[in-house]
């Protein structure tokens, strides 16, 4: 159970491969980031455009939901299938999301609905 520090010497081919790999990765990050900014922009625009609240609220919630999923996969590396125990991690996250969703439905329907 010792702690050794690995010093790896990479070949030129390996270096090229890694570089291409990181570049593709970077491109994906930027695209995802742009999508997220865009979704946020739509949310703000819907409010600015003065649509009726019954339209704005579900739209914002929907966009928020999409963002959560995107962020989990893009920024929290859930898409990286080689991560150790990624299946277990996914199971936990989706369980949490499911449970949180029931709370959300319950709160909106039995506490807040018709109370404001």
């Amino acid at each position, binding site marked *: *159970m010792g*702690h050794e520090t690995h010093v790896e010497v990479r070949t030129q081919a390996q270096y090229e491969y890694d570089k291409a790999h990181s570049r593709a990765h970077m491109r994906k990050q930027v695209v995802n980031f742009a999508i997220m900014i865009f979704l946020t922009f739509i949310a703000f625009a819907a409010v600015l455009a003065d649509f009726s609240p019954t339209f704005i609220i579900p739209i914002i919630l929907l966009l928020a939901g999409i963002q959560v999923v995107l962020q989990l996969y893009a920024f929290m590396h859930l898409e990286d299938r080689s991560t*150790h125990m990624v299946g*277990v991690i996914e199971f*936990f996250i989706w369980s*949490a999301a499911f449970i949180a969703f029931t*709370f959300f439905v*319950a709160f909106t329907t039995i506490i807040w609905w018709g109370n404001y």
Partner: protein
Amino acid sequence: MSSVTQKKGFGAHVWDYLTTVDHKKIAIMYLAAGTLFFAIAGFEALLMRIQLMFPESTFISAGLFNELLTMHGTTMLFLAATPIIFAFMNAIVPLQIGARDVAFPFLNSLGFWLFFIGAVFLHLSFFLGGAPDAGWTSYASLSLYSPGHGIDFYILGLQISGAGTLISGINFIVTIITMRAPGMTFMRMPLFTWTTLVSSSLILFAFPPLTGGLFLMLVDRMFGANFFDHTMGGNTIIWEHLFWIFGHPEVYILVLPAFGLFSEIIPVFARKRLFGYSSMVFATILIGFLGFMVWAHHMFTVGLGATANAIFAVATMAIAVPTGMKVFNWILTIWGGSIKVTVPMLYALGFIPSFVAGGVTGVMQATAPLDYQLHDSYFIVAHFHYVIVGGIVTALFGSAHFYWPIMFNRALNPKLGVLTFWIFFIGFHLTFFVQHFLGLMGMPRRVFTYMGGQGWDLFNFISSIGAIMMGIGVIILVIDVLLSIKSEPVNRRDYWGDGRSLEWAIETPLPFYNFKQTPLVRGFDPYWIEKEEGNKEGMVYAEPLGEIHMPNNSILPFIMSIGTMIAAFGALYSPWGDQVQAGTATGAPAVVSLALIIGGLGLTIACMIIRSFKDDLGFHVTVAEIESIEADLANYRATGKKGGNK
């Protein structure tokens, strides 16, 4: 490295326990602290039962009764049952999966100290102007208007100890997922490990709502916010939801490990493989999920509407299905086994009918229209004591006997054990069985006295006698524990002779690194398999004897916890508090309050920074050292003498 068997002074011992990160020592601290709070809360219960023994009694006042009631419930659930369960998890789970320690030993220690300091803080309320008095549920409509600092102690104390529980929960999840010995697949894990995993996941999902709720109540009471104050546009019902979103999973957090403990005890003494292992695992996970979908069954009478009540009623009844599966599996494990009725088995046999009784009344309460009748009556008190005492306390007492040899290298006396069991068990049924009828006759719960001549007098008297018997039972158990200190060390593996899982494969007393080589798991019930094949060495091993890497001790968790306590005092005496402004509680000047909050949290954060920036890579035990420690232990087992001047 000195060996475990060297003699140390008293001060060194205290320092050792303050700084330890060893799961076995943390287990002992959890057990000691949990037992202390169990005794305190039990004493509070006895005082209440003496008050209720006769109608219109004046033994204790109404106000004190409310404080005792609140502290009893809060202490029993958060500060007695939870830590004692954590004691067994800490002591047994790493051994069951063949790990050297938990995944984050530092956090393990931090979890314990936060729990303990939070508990001490809560109990200081008795000396600093009065304990909380709004029930363990602390409904906002009551607690926001409770004069004095009692509720503030509840909020801050639970906030601190809750953080500790959450940390420990996460630690167990990671430990069980990542630190299993080679061959220990998920579907080979013993059921206590499984239930620990599911229960820790419930902690992970259930404690954040409580933390959020407590935080809102904290700013409501101490800093002038109005989340729960309907006169200011708040909503008092939100507290009830947040509390029960946490509160119902909390009962499963406690009862699932209890199920797990019995699933370990029963196969050992029925001398038969656990019946329906995979259905047990499935049922555990299903209960964990459904446990989150039923919280509003505590709020049927709040007025959520017929649709909501119906949904939550059906969801609640659905939980009875996986629970029933478990009960049948236990019965079928016992069926046809060659049964040895030892003390742990006696507790298991007592548990099954008691818990079923509690489950049946639970399903009755889940019937929303009927619950309008039962709610807030003594029927509820009877129900939850049947599940908590009949389900959880029996598991803890039974497992204490079961695991004492591993934890302390001593055995508890079986004669005293049987005596405790019968006195406690009969006392328990006397106390709570008649309360069903008190409830049906209309006696409300949480009342400090009642008028005579309503047909309640006899049953209340019987109930109090039962409570005194339970008290006597516990005292005998404590005597048993004290006597065990002076008894002969057991010095062996597999104390009961029929152990099945890994923890029985290791010889006591345990070295601090557990198994000297990581064992290889070749199937479910791995130790049983080895015994069947005539292996006398305990296990086969997955690695040659090599250096062992262990974590260093640290005092930081203790200091971090003290920091949170200092900050809690700052918030408690905040001059902006509702009660302080109304003149019913004392406040400190703003600078003092702020200085305490900032200083306390600063201390905690400073420790975190130190911990993050100072690399602490632990230490290595060399092969020579391991051999010398093992030789010392072997010598101790053979001669009873602690290792000399090595």
